[in-house]
């Protein structure tokens, strides 16, 4: 009887003391919550969304066609921003706002295209190297070191120029925006080593984790282990690398175009800078507009990558 009396009081406080728990959310949702709290990452997301929206909707909203040079015909080129041309006109009469807006889809095409190529090649090669190991791994790693030592930017310039000459008189010449495509492909080809390196490191690390060992023990097939266990865990750092790479590729194309090796028939921010650099000191808006666009885009992707890094690898942060 006394025992009962003592039992009852314990039961009640115990039940109150233990809080009810919701089932824990999955890894991706947790990462999203953490990302939301990261100010830098959210700003990056906003900027990138802005650029994407500009690329998708902008062209429908601008007042002038990007190749409209009518301003030059009535002597209105190199005009400062006004009510007629919101960002002014450039050296040959183009509307600066229009050219800047139309530069967005080009930039995104460059960034996404280059990183797509780099990712496919890099993940395949890095994955094989990391999972198979041995001589294959060694050979692949030496190859990546080779690519990393070559002065990438400088070689791209040379190849673009020489390719342009070689192609004269061949059927390839008639491919639209060939120059731009060449640049995208080259950027992708030079970016894959860093993707491969990272993929390899992740595969190596994950291959040795206990949960993969456990999966092997219970007889999971190699393919299943790759697809269901290793790949999803290797994804986060890959996403971060891709975000950074997109920004980097856009910047690289801008620099190539700025030096005059770009595609004169494409509308890109680097091209705009190339056309208008000579009149920088008398008509700064012609260069500041595309310049600001490049900055905002690259900053956006960098901040996004930073926020994603934090979201995927939380560190204890107090206060």
């Amino acid at each position, binding site marked *: 009887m006394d025992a009962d009396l003592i039992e009852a009081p314990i039961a009640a406080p115990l039940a109150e*003391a*233990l809080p009810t728990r919701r089932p824990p959310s999955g890894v991706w949702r947790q990462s999203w919550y953490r990302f939301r709290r990261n100010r830098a990452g959210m700003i990056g997301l906003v900027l990138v969304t802005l650029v994407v929206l500009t690329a998708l909707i902008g062209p429908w909203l601008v007042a002038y066609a990007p190749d409209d040079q009518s301003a030059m015909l009535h002597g209105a080129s190199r005009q400062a921003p006004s009510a007629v041309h919101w960002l002014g006109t450039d050296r040959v009469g183009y509307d600066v706002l229009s050219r800047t807006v139309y530069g967005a889809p080009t930039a995104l095409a460059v960034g996404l295209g280059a990183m797509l190529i780099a990712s496919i090649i890099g993940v395949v090669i890095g994955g094989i190297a990391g999972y198979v190991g041995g001589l294959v791994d060694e050979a692949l790693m030496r190859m990546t070191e080779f690519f990393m030592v070559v002065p990438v930017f400088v070689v791209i310039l040379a190849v673009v120029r020489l390719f342009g000459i070689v192609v004269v008189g061949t059927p390839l010449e008639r491919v639209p925006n060939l120059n731009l495509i060449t640049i995208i492909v080259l950027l992708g080809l030079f970016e894959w080593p860093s993707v491969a390196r990272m993929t390899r490191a992740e595969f190596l690390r994950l291959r040795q984790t206990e949960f993969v060992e456990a999966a092997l023990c219970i007889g999971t097939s190699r393919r299943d282990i790759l697809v269901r266990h290793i790949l999803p865990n290797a994804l986060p750092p890959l996403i971060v690398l891709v975000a950074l790479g997109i920004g980097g590729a856009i910047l690289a194309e801008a620099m190539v175009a700025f030096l005059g090796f770009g595609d004169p028939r494409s509308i890109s921010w680097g091209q705009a800078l190339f056309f208008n650099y000579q009149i920088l000191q008398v008509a700064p808006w012609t260069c500041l507009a595309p310049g600001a666009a490049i900055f905002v885009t690259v900053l956006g992707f960098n901040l996004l990558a930073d926020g994603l890094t934090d979201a995927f690898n939380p560190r204890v942060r*107090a206060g």
Partner: protein
Amino acid sequence: MLSIPVSAQDKPLLAVEGLRVQFPTRDGVVRAVDGVDFHVGAGETLGIVGESGSGKTVTSLSLLRLAPPPARITAGRVVFEGEDLVSTTPARLVAIRGRRMAMIFQNPATSLNPVLSIGRQLSEILRWHTGIGRKPALDRAAELLRLVGIGDPAARLKQYPHELSGGMKQRVGIARALLCEPALLLADEPTTALDVTIQAQILDLLAELRTRLSMSMILVTHDMGVVARMADRITVMYAGRVCETAAASTIFDAPLHPYTRALLESVPRIDHSYSGARRVLPSIAGRPPDLLHPPAGCRFHARCPEAVPDCARIMPREISVGPGHTVSCIRRGSPAETELAA
């Protein structure tokens, strides 16, 4: 609020009174140490025992004000050799650390600087505290290496930490702490990261050294076997508060606090036969409380086999139940503590 009668012989070397340490975090304030009292006499070894999260490591670090930011000491005093370290100047702290009070750490692999030689790390401390030259400092360092049982000290001084074994690194850590012959040594889980055979050696070494140098020691651990061997007195902590303090023999033979009893029962013993049909090892049900939102009343009440409804409301105050024996439990006679605003 010190309610423990001070021992008749002399004032304690170290007296901790009402210590509170908090960590402000994004989700609230973590009250890691919430009103802790204990003292250590000259030449005495105090064992502080508790589970992970009991606040024992934060307590020991806070004695020298080394708890990592954003930790803050929000109340209490740490009176060492007559001086309150909580309110003293940084200059005094720097003079006391490593000289009068020193510390050895849990993980020997990470507590030595990997890019500096052993000799450099040891002599630097000596030279800073005593101003002696490079050669005499290295000689003294070699002497100490010999004292802690490291052979060929001259060669060791030139080596780097990664060239030493775990046991040797821990001996170097001990030598580093003893360079200036401190009055009090703080040992935070000194053997947890070592092999069992090496553990015994290190404990023997510590026992020998404290006698030889007439040193007091605070031994923080979760291992009852370690305190059984080394401690004169034991303080049991749970969730940031002290449950019970007594002489070692009393704790083991006649523990009073329900937590102490549960703790001792859960230690597997060869000479016990675990009765019952399933032969299950006894453990304490439940989980330690969330220190962000600690429960009202006694911290242990949710897991306590002797809890009554009052336990959930009343925070027990320490009460003396015998010579040098204090308990915080209303079922052992503790009165209620009026919570000080923290």
